[in-house]
């Protein structure tokens, strides 16, 4: 199956085409095709995952057999371009290094390699450069296959109930399929060009799906905002891809680029430039500050879309890209040996900024959107401090509980027909027990309370922040950031829970629980939110065969991943950090509980205190980023540009046209008066006059007078005779 994993995206792609062409005529309006395709894709993804585990185990065993000559063997980048080989190369590998302890593995570290499975076909050639498409299947890819297909399948089932009777039901499922296909293609991309194309395609699907109800202007505005903001970041992606192409010696291949970066074959300046450019792309796609403004507005789309795209899969494309190109980032930003770098800073700011904005939202989806922004900040921060596995593990767990939260909010809105917590919700736990239970579970997972999933992943990030890095402080500053973020997460999520499920019902009508197609996915996701964390239990708390399974199977091992560099290390489990994080989370819950259930604290402070009100205003205006982008930057450019172009149009272009008109009129007048009237008419009249006068003159000859004729005769004779005699 590993060799053929590239067919997995083809199923949703085919279903896209089929739904577009035939969807309306099918009994379920196309949704059955979509579900079937994603179902098959999910099954195949499971098979791929199992095969991959086998592949890694095989590499381990084979490495164990040849470890006596391990140190002499040179590292082989198995993913060399053009090589269609499958599993053969692991002959000289030793098992994946786990990073902590074990000096007896030291001499084997240099040669460990679990070959990624690659396939490649050259699309066309231009100027000596092969443009090829292919598949790169390694740990992160396999993991993402699983996550994307699973969440997509659950969202498909959920949507059959949620958007039932919608004006564009078939179209919705078509584009859900297309999105799934694009995302799956993106995770399997072998070259940066392929990554770029699919990145854009995913953005297009996001645009289409956010603007699903585009008849209302706010929805189409939100779709445009998402697309254009992503476009800004995509400039960085293009610059980064091109820089790496030239810096890596004319190749687009991800494995080769990263191999060179890790081994030091690319100059530091080029790496830094590429890393910063790619960082811009991450900022836009994964909603980092300062290009995060589109993500909350993207909540204008249907809730399943928000769950799939803006919580679990598309927004993590940026994280995934960083993880794929980690060699470039690690070397470019010197992640292993600094105590602060651009990646971590951006992530850190996003954590706090997003969390702050989540407090002042009344729309439940907007709270979850900012929560997503904040959690994405955690992932970027994790990558920034060097905890690669922590970031991807958090991506893994976050997909489940955030999707569960979004789908739960969709279920609630289905019942009360609104997303506004303050006005239309409250006390819903009485009528929606299933939604309530799954929502609580997902919230606790998000806050990170032991033993749910969020605890394990967030704790690993915090441990990384405290342990990794260089200098005296390592990345401890970011530990503080992470802890503050955890506190805020706990507080605002508890607020949401209270406003939605507790207290008095403030809305209208009679809310009731949603149907099974909505509730079953909620339970599945909630279940995963509970158990997913155990995939990466630290070594300190579990036997070796069960510990760090996620890392074991999914962290790439090869020359293209900086895992072998001395600067790279894995965080160890730290009881202190774990306890602190848990306590802070509980403190956050408790504070919110006091504020809302017990009504304690300075309620109404924003009315009384100017400072508090100013702070609230800043948050309510989303730090004025929208104002900056729309009015100041865009307005400042388009105003003068428009005025300048208008001036050119009126004066230069119209001046030329008018001038040409005036010139031709003057020429025409001149030609008429002088040439036509005088020359042409003069010639005509003159010739007539000449003819008349000639006639008058010639008329004299026909006078009828004989003597005149005679005179002529004699005269002529005299002349001729004279001529004859004298000259001849």
């Amino acid at each position, binding site marked *: 199956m590993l060799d053929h994993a590239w067919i997995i995206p083809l199923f949703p792609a085919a279903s896209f085409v089929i739904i577009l062409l035939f969807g309306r005529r099918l009994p379920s309006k196309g949704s059955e095709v979509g579900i079937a395709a994603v179902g098959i894709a999910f099954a195949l993804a499971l098979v791929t995952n199992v095969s991959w585990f086998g592949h890694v185990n095989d590499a381990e065993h084979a490495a164990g057999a040849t470890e006596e000559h391990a140190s002499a063997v040179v590292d082989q980048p198995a993913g060399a371009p053009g090589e269609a080989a499958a599993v053969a190369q692991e002959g000289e590998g030793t098992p994946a290094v786990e990073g902590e302890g074990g000096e007896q593995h030291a001499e084997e570290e240099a040669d460990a390699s679990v070959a990624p499975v690659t396939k490649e076909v050259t699309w066309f050639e231009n100027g000596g450069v092969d443009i090829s498409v292919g598949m790169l299947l390694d740990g992160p890819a396999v993991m993402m296959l699983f996550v994307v297909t699973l969440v997509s399948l659950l969202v498909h089932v959920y949507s059959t109930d949620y958007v039932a009777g919608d004006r564009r039901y078939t179209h919705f499922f078509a584009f859900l399929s297309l999105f799934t296909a694009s995302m799956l293609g993106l995770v399997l991309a072998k070259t940066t060009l392929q990554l770029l194309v699919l990145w854009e395609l995913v953005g297009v699907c996001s645009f289409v799906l956010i603007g699903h109800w585009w008849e209302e202007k706010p929805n189409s505005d939100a779709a445009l905002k998402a697309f254009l903001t992503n476009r800004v970041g995509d400039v960085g992606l293009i610059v980064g891809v091109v820089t790496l192409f030239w810096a890596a010696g004319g190749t687009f291949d991800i494995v080769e680029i990263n191999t060179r970066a890790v081994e030091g074959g690319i100059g530091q300046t080029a790496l830094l430039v590429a890393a910063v450019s790619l960082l811009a792309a991450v900022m836009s796609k994964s909603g980092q500050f300062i290009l995060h403004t589109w993500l909350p507005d993207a909540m204008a789309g249907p809730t399943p879309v928000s769950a799939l795209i803006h919580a679990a899969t598309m927004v993590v494309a940026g994280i995934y890209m960083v993880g794929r190109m980690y060699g470039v980032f690690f070397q470019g930003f010197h992640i292993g040996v600094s105590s602060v770098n651009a990646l971590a800073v951006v992530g850190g700011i996003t954590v706090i900024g997003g969390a702050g904005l989540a407090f002042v939202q009344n729309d439940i989806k907007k709270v979850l959107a900012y929560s997503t922004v904040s959690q994405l900040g955690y992932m970027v921060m994790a990558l920034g401090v060097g905890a690669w596995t922590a970031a991807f593990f958090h991506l893994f767990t976050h997909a489940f509980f955030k999707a569960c939260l979004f789908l739960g909010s969709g279920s609630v809105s289905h019942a009360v027909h609104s997303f506004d917590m303050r006005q239309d919700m409250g006390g819903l736990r009485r009528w929606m027990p299933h939604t309530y239970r799954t929502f609580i579970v997902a919230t606790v997972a998000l806050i990170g309370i032991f033993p749910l999933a969020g605890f394990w992943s967030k704790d690993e990030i915090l441990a990384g922040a405290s342990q990794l890095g260089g200098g005296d402080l390592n990345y401890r500053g970011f530990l503080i950031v992470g802890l503050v973020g955890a506190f805020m997460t706990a507080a605002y999520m508890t607020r949401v829970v209270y406003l939605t499920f507790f207290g008095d019902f403030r809305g209208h009508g009679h809310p009731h629980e949603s149907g099974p197609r909505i509730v079953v996915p909620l339970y599945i996701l909630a279940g995963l939110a509970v158990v997913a964390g155990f995939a990466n239990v630290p070594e300190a708390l579990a036997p070796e065969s069960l510990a760090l399974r996620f890392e074991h199977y999914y962290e790439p091992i090869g020359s293209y991943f900086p895992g072998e560099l001395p600067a790279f290390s894995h965080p160890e489990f730290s009881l202190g950090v774990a306890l602190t994080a848990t306590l802070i989370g509980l403190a956050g819950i408790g504070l919110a509980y006091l504020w809302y259930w017990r009504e304690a604290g300075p309620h109404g402070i924003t009315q009384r205190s100017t400072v508090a009100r100013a702070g609230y205003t800043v948050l309510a205006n989303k730090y004025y980023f929208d104002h900056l982008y729309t009015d100041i930057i865009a307005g400042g450019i388009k105003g003068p540009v428009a005025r300048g172009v208008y001036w050119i149009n009126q004066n230069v272009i119209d001046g030329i046209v008018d001038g040409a008109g005036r010139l031709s009129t003057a020429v025409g007048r001149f030609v008429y008066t002088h040439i036509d009237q005088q020359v042409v008419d003069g010639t005509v009249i003159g010739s007539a006059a000449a003819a008349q006068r000639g006639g008058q003159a010639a008329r004299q000859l026909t*006078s*009828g*007078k004989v*003597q005149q004729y005679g*005179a002529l005769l004699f005269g002529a004779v005299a002349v001729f005779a004279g001529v004859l005699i004298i000259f001849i």
Partner: protein
Amino acid sequence: MLNQFLLLGAILFCVGVYGVLAKRSAVLVLMSVELILNAVNINLLAFGALAGDVTGAVFALFVIAVAAAEVGVGLAIVLAIYRNSHSVDLNDVDTMKG
């Protein structure tokens, strides 16, 4: 010696030409024509004498005969014209005009 006869003939001829062209009366024009014919006759006879041949004289006789015929017919025409328009002014004889 020959030349003087020829020149005489030329002078008479030219006077006759003037008369033909410049006279208004038809009768005077006929008279001028006679002058011309006589000039021709002198010419003929002068050359005849030069050549010692009688041919010149013979031709001159013929010319005289023709001149007589011509005068007869010419005057008949003049009479006819006079009868029609009561004048022999050649300026008025322009029915061939145009």
